[in-house]
């Protein structure tokens, strides 16, 4: 503490009159009182946020947690087929099913058919091996009359498919409640007879292609918004405030207009009997027979998504360009740079923060797009979100939807983290 050689310490000690820590009026040590006051201030700030945090945890974080749980947990087979699941747990992958296995299988299907849950079991195996649901239900019907040993022969007599090693591999994959098989399926992978991870049949490989298409289309849309947004943002930034505020309305109006309205307008404009085709014919660019097909394919998705996401690129670019000092470019010109060099070497690098923010935001929003591809995408313009919706409402394979959603969520959260790192969420602006 205060050594006698330290003149300042000596002065403080003398001024205090005593060799004790500073205290408040009611005699508490000052540092403790300060710590308490700041703790109280922290609590007060936190209490203001707490209701919303609780609300978001309940209505947003928990539902997503539940979805993630569903992507690794499906007890449709294991809960209704306990004996054969136990046999799978005891044996190594690749073991040829013996008489005990067939006995367990027959008893399980019989019990499950009586409990009317054999459909659930069949549906679960159907996810792994399409076309097997009816095998379970029909076998269940036959087994309700009773079954005699030897079980192997009895089962094979009901249906020869029961000897199929691939079916046994599928049942093994489903025999635990917690499973990675939906994630494997999301990556077009499955476990074969020996328990090794292999690619699925070529005609069933769709998901990786869809993920790649989603990434590719999002990148393309991001690039298009950059191409169209950059000149606009530059113009708005260099015009006098009064004029640029007026033109800004043209950017903000699409931003405020309903997404469905904008998608509808593009459907109306782009269809084969629509305004764009009529205009092109009137201009003589195409003839009546050569009407362009711009909808229900990727072109429609790209055009509509570019239009919808363009404001998200323009706004951050604009707010950065506003702050760029024009005298740097003038200095470059006066030192002999051509206008192109001055733009490339001086102006453009200064816009990169805004460009990064805009591009990340557009890409994040594009990756998860659902409505526009669903309405104007046709077959070739479908993205991964549409596949999630298809599994939710069409095939009812909810675990698969959850696994695909979890992978998409992981990607988006990584991008979100990068965005927070580079741009900061506080700098997100809305018009």
């Amino acid at each position, binding site marked *: 503490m205060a050594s006698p050689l330290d003149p300042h310490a000596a002065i403080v000690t003398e001024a205090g009159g005593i060799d004790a820590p500073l205290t408040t009026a009611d005699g508490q040590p000052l540092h403790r009182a300060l710590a308490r006051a700041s703790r109280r201030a922290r609590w007060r700030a936190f209490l203001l946020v707490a209701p919303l945090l609780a609300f978001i945890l309940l209505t947003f974080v928990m539902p997503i947690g539940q979805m993630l749980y*569903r992507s690794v947990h499906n007890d449709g087979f294991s809960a209704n087929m306990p004996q054969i699941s136990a046999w799978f747990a005891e044996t190594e992958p690749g073991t040829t099913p013996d008489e005990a296995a067939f006995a367990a299988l027959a008893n399980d299907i019989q019990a499950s058919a009586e409990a009317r849950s054999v459909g659930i079991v069949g549906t679960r195996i159907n996810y792994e091996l399409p076309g097997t649901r009816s095998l379970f239900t029909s076998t269940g019907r036959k087994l309700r009359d009773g079954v005699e040993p030897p079980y192997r022969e009895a089962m094979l007599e009901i249906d020869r498919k029961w000897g199929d090693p691939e079916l046994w591999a599928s049942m093994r994959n489903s025999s635990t409640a917690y499973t990675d098989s939906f994630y494997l399926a999301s990556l077009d992978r499955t476990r074969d007879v020996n328990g090794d991870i292999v690619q699925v049949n070529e005609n069933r490989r769709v998901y990786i292609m869809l993920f790649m298409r989603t990434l590719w289309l999002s990148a393309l849309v991001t690039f298009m918004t950059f191409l169209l947004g950059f000149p606009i943002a530059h113009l708005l930034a260099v015009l006098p405030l009064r004029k640029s505020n007026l033109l800004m309305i043209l950017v903000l109006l699409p931003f405020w207009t309903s997404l469905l309205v904008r998608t509808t307008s593009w459907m109306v404009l782009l269809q084969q009997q629509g305004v764009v085709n009529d205009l092109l014919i009137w201009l003589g660019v195409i003839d009546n027979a050569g009407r362009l097909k711009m909808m229900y394919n990727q072109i429609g998705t790209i055009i509509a998504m570019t239009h919808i996401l363009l404001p998200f690129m323009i706004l951050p670019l604009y707010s950065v360009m506003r702050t760029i000092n024009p005298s740097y470019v003038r200095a470059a010109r006066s030192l002999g740079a051509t206008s192109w060099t001055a733009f490339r070497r001086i102006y453009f690098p200064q816009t990169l923060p805004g460009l990064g923010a805009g591009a990340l935001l557009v890409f994040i929003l594009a990756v998860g797009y659902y409505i526009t591809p669903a309405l104007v995408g046709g077959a070739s313009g479908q993205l991964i979100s549409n596949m999630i919706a298809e599994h939710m409402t069409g095939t009812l394979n909810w675990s698969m939807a959850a696994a695909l959603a979890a992978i998409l969520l992981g990607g988006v959260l990584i991008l979100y983290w990068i965005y927070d790192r580079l741009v900061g969420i506080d700098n997100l602006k809305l018009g």
Partner: protein
Amino acid sequence: MALPTYATPLERTWHWAYLAICTLIFIFLIAPILIIIPLSFNTEPYFTFTPEMLSLDPDGFSMRWYDSLMTFGMARPEAPRDASWFADMWANAKWVNAAKNSIIIGVFSTVLATVLGTLAALGLSRPEMPFRRLIMAILISPMIVPLIITATGLFFFYSSACLPQNSWLSSIFAPFLSNSGCLANTYLGVILAHATLGIPFVIITVTATLVGFDQSLNRAAASLGANPRTTFFRVTMPLILPGVISGALFAFVTSFDEVVAVLFIAGPDQQTIPRQMWNGIREQISPAILAIATLLVIFSIALLATVELLRRRSERIRGLSPG
């Protein structure tokens, strides 16, 4: 932006070409929204300009699609338009019911999002807030996470998180829940979901307003004897009100425009305008869609004007910009 006097001919050409490109991009931005307005007055059930429309013949224009917005779904659309016709429309017309649902859900979710979001923004703007960055990231995430993922999660949550039948809790909440005591297919479920989606917008706009907020004003009020409540309502609130209102408008528009969550968690009783449009686009697309779209465009123009006025007022009273 004027060209400098020393510009070369090449630069002049580029300058005019640049302005032309910008004009084209502005047309790309705005034309698709404006073009549906005249098309919605089409007499024919087409999505393109008929020759009569192009020659500005009054016969080429009609209000039939606006009329169909009222009559679609009515029990007796052909009846004379007296009081009973209007009662029929009010009770049965699909678009009218969708508008009612959209407004009910929009208003309640906006109130919820605005109250919770403003409180949280006040807390987040205090320098002593712990874990500020992490909490902010969590609260903004409903805007970033793809809607389809949120809707999927809510679907699982709403169909599994049910109150047990005949408990005292379910007797209190019964009017807000479905017959099986769940949130699926209920107004409450949609309102909670839309409030969640609107909250990020409220937080962003209110914290942006609070950036220029002078904390010493609060201390001054306190030193003059005002209690925290008086300080909030007499000093803080009037200053951040423009931000709060534009946040509320954003939240309302988010709810008013939202269709994915509605598709997944709402029942036939909670059909909103976007849901009805979704049906219309996917099934029997008719220019009636353009009529409702036109009404929505006019609605968004009004909202945009309000938000712009509020923003300017907010900047003026906080002294950020002159005039």
